[in-house]
Each structure stands twice: as C-alpha cells, then as structure tokens.
C-alpha cells in the first residue's frame, strides 16, 4: 500500500481489468468450441446420417448408426456395473464409514479418480482382452465402469451425509431395522443427489475415447453382442479425424456434434434439473 493514490488506483483498475479479461477468455472458450462444432457439424447431420451404417470410402451417404447404438450399449452396460458398485460403496462410507477400512476405501476412490483413462484402458486390456484373446464391448464397458465408480461413490457419500441424522434416528426409534432405514428412508431422501452424481459420471464416460481404443476396438458393422468388438461414437470420431479422406473429416465433425449434444444434454440435465435445492 505504498505509492501515490492515483498510481495505486491505476494499478487497481489495470489488474482488475486483467482478471476480467481472463474471465472473458475462459468463458468464451466454451462458446467458441460449441459454436465451431455446430457450424462444422450441422451441415452433415441428417436423419440418414444417424440411421445408416458406414459405407466404404468413395461412396456417399454413410452414417454412424452403429456407433450411436454401440456407444449406448457400452455406456449403458458401464452404468449398470458402475452405478450400483459406486452407490453401495457410498452407502458403506456414509453409514458405516469410520475407521481404517473406510480411510483406505476413500483413498482408493481418490486414487482411482486420478488414474488416467488410458491406464484404465490398459487395465481392462490386461484383465479381459488378453485372457479372452478378443476385443469386446464388455471390456470397454468394464473400463468405463472403473472410471465411473469413484465419481458415483464420492458423490453418493456426500449426498447421504447431507441427510440429517435425526431422520435416521426417528425411523430407528420406531423399531425399523437399520438396513430398512437405509434403503427406505435415507437413500430415497438423497436420491436426487445420487442420480445427479450418476448422470455426471455417465456424461463423463460417454466422451471417453482412450480406454476404448484397445477394448471395444471399433467395428464398421453392427456390434454382435457383448463379446464382439463394437463401434462407439468417440472412437469413430477419432478414426475419421485421423483418416486422410475429406468426406470422413466431414462425418467426424457431424459425429462430434452428435456426441457433444448428448454429453451436454446429460450434463445439463444433471446439473440443472436434478440438483436438490436443499444441497445448495
């Protein structure tokens, strides 16, 4: 706080102006990205694009129907595995989670949350693809579920902890067994928050590409079951993007628009519509 007052005021205005500029830059990044994808992708998205299979290079009119369906399949199965594991693990942490075991479980969840997705892919590859000697939708789902678990687990724990202890005690005092209190009283009152966490986890893995390269692998036709390779939207975008064909680049932008809209929709739904008012 030294210097001439006028100079101090000038410094103040300059530095605060710089922070405003930072904020402007940061916030405009999102809109620039969304706008550019919409601009590049919109011209190539059509009903046919969404409902047809890819065609060989040179032919026109190929679509990404198999990738859309494959993504739904792989992400859906990942959620079927990851959400229950995460929620029940979260129940453990919130309701019984004191002592050494709980510490290690929390630590493991934090570690897992920080593991790069490509390393999770390696894990699924070593665990499932190598022993079965085949790329499969299942191995992709397992990889994605490993990414989902820590997200769901920690958000479930946080939201369960927001449920007041008095509610549990009121139910216990009526003679309700504890497991029933947890399942019928505690979990339902935190259900919106838990669903939010699950949806955020889904929106995160829906765009994951790296762990799918050598697990779900990709496919130019419909996937034929969980034990066969399957095409997914993010991986198709990648393969089309690095290809040398202009038509495939155009399709990559279109597929990127589709994926972006899906991820944004799930993400916004989770944040706006489901956010419990009490938690704010």
């Amino acid at each position: 706080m030294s210097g001439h007052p006028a100079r101090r005021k000038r410094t103040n205005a300059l530095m605060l102006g710089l922070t405003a500029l930072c904020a402007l830059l940061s916030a405009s990044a999102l809109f620039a990205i969304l706008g550019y994808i919409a601009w590049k992708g919109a011209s190539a998205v059509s009903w046919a694009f969404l409902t047809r299979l890819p065609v060989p290079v040179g032919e026109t009119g190929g679509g990404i129907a198999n990738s859309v369906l494959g993504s739904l399949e792989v992400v859906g199965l990942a959620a079927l595995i990851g959400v229950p594991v995460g929620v029940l693990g979260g129940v453990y942490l919130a309701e019984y989670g004191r002592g050494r075991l709980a510490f290690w479980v929390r630590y493991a969840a934090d570690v897992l949350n920080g593991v790069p997705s490509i390393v999770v892919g390696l894990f699924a590859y070593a665990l499932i693809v190598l022993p079965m000697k085949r790329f499969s939708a299942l191995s992709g789902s397992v990889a994605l579920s490993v990414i989902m678990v820590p997200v769901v687990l920690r958000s479930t724990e946080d939201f369960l902890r927001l449920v007041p202890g008095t509610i549990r005690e009121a139910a216990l005092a009526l003679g309700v067994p504890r497991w029933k209190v947890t399942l019928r009283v505690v979990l339902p009152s935190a259900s919106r928050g838990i669903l939010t966490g699950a949806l955020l986890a889904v929106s995160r893995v829906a765009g994951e590409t790296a762990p799918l390269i050598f697990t779900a692998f990709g496919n130019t036709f419909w996937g034929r079951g969980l034990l066969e390779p399957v095409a997914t939207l993010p991986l198709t975008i990648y393969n089309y993007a690095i290809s040398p064909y202009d038509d495939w680049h155009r399709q990559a932008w279109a597929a990127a628009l589709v994926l972006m809209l899906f991820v944004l929709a799930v993400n916004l739904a989770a944040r706006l519509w489901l956010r419990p008012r009490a938690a704010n």
Partner: protein
Amino acid sequence: MTPAAAPERTSSGARGLVPVPGPRERAGDRLFRLIVTGFALLTLATVAALAWQLTRGSLGTWRAFGASFLWGRTWDPVNDVFGALPFLYGTLVTSLIALLIAVPLGVGTAVFLTELAPRRLASAVGFAVELLAAVPSVILGLMGMYLLVPAVRFVEPSLERWLGFLPFFRGAAYGLGLLTAGLILSLMILPYVTAITRDVLATVPRSLKEALYALGATRWEVVRGVSLPYARPGILGAVFLALGRALGETMAVTMVIGNTPRISASLFSPGYSMAAVIANELAEAVSDAHLSALIAIGLTLLGVTIVVNGLARLLIYRLERPR
C-alpha cells in the same frame, strides 16, 4: 442429541453420524452391512488389481532394461529396444506449457469471479468454465487438428522472429508439435484450476479482507495482500491436480503432438507423450516385448499421477480442515 442421551455405542447428531453396530445387531442388518462393505472393498480391490496387472504385465521390460528403461532414448519395436525418455519428455513439456497458460488464466478468472463479478455474472461464467470440462477430449483434439494446427503453423514463423534467440522457438513450422499439444491441454485443465481456486478464495475470512479495506487499501491490494497469500496452498493444490490431469490426458494430445519419439528443445518440433504412445501402438503391438514396454509406460504414468494427485490432495485437504 447430546452424548449423554446417546450412550457409548451411539454417537449421533446433526453431522449425520449414526449408531455403531453393536453386539445385538439383527441378522438383516448384519447381512446388509456385509453387502455394502463388500462393494466398498471392490473399489479397494480394483485399485490393487490395477496396480498388480500393470506390474505383472510389465515385468519383462523391467527385467530386460531395469530402471534404465526410463532414461533410454531409443524406441525401436522392430529390434525390441525400448526407452521411455522421449515420451516422458513430451508428457512433461506439454504439461508444463499447459500449466504456464492455464494457471494465470484460471487464477485470474477465479479472482474475477470471487472478488469482482456480481453474483449472477459469477455463477454464469463459472458455469460456462465448468462445462468446458465436459467437452470430450476427442472433440478438442478434432478442433486442435483442423483449427489450432494451421493457426500455430501460421504463428510459428513470427514467434521465431521475435523469440528465436531462445532455443524453444526455433525450427520448421509444422503446426503439429509440443506447443500445439500444450495449448490444447491448457484448455482442458483450465476448468480445474478455475473451479478449485474459486472455491479456495471463497474461504478467505471476510474479517481479514475488511481489515485491509479499513486501512484504505484498494481491491487489488486486498487480493494481492490477503486473498492470494491466504489461498496459496489451495491454489498450489489446484495446480498439482491440474498437472495430474494434464499428464494422463490422451486423445487431444495424440491428435496434435505429431507422434514422433524425438527429444528436441524446440517447442515447434513434433514429439510424443506417454499416453499417446500407448493409444497408438497397443492395439497393434505384436511382440510380447513391445506389449510389455507399453504396459511399463502405463505403470510409470500411473505412478507419476498417483504421486502428483497425492500432493494435490494433501494441499487441498489441509485447507478444508478447520484451523
């Protein structure tokens, strides 16, 4: 409820703590507790299995090369010679570039959001920055390939003209390379830096700031004199967390880094990263030695991110504890 009303086995109250299971636990309760404990253990087991699979899968490489795998400079799958240094170098350099850009930008944004912006604007801008984290990395990579690479190729000659006296800004302008990868990465870690710094700045006690205002300080002087020093450990935590993300980021980097295992001081030159080489080569790795070397890179990456994230957690958690 006070401790007196809840005897030894029951600790409860507003914090949401519940009775500890006692000797008279019912059969149903016991079963339920065992089930959820089992699911919690599954998380623990996953981490153990992950570390075990990667260790087992990379044993061949560690036996053949030992720790010198980490500083070997040759990567030659045809002759089974493997050294990870070019990848370590690329990962480190791109992550540092990303931090150099994202940390000032993120901290500046966070200061604006907490100290300057009206609440509505702050939540709108904060929301936009958080949503940036939801953009899939393959989409950022796509934009990087077709928007950023040409732009960087265009800018590089002028950069060389002005900053060419530094070894970092010399050489042919490919567009694909370490600089471009760092730029894309900075965009990916910006939301983390911003969000955590904002949360940390929000914990600065009003009384401290008001004390300085009462002495006639300007807003900026309060930010510089009180808020930022108070928040420093938390901001450092945010930096480490962002670093952890940047180190392991795969797709966007793979698409713009040039995928050439070369160590060059110039940021214009193409490079390679640990995550990128796994992404590119694993599905096609035919020999066991090649596969093992790639898994060894994965294990190294895992180790590095665990250490970096551990430091981040330490710094951030220390703030959350009441002082």
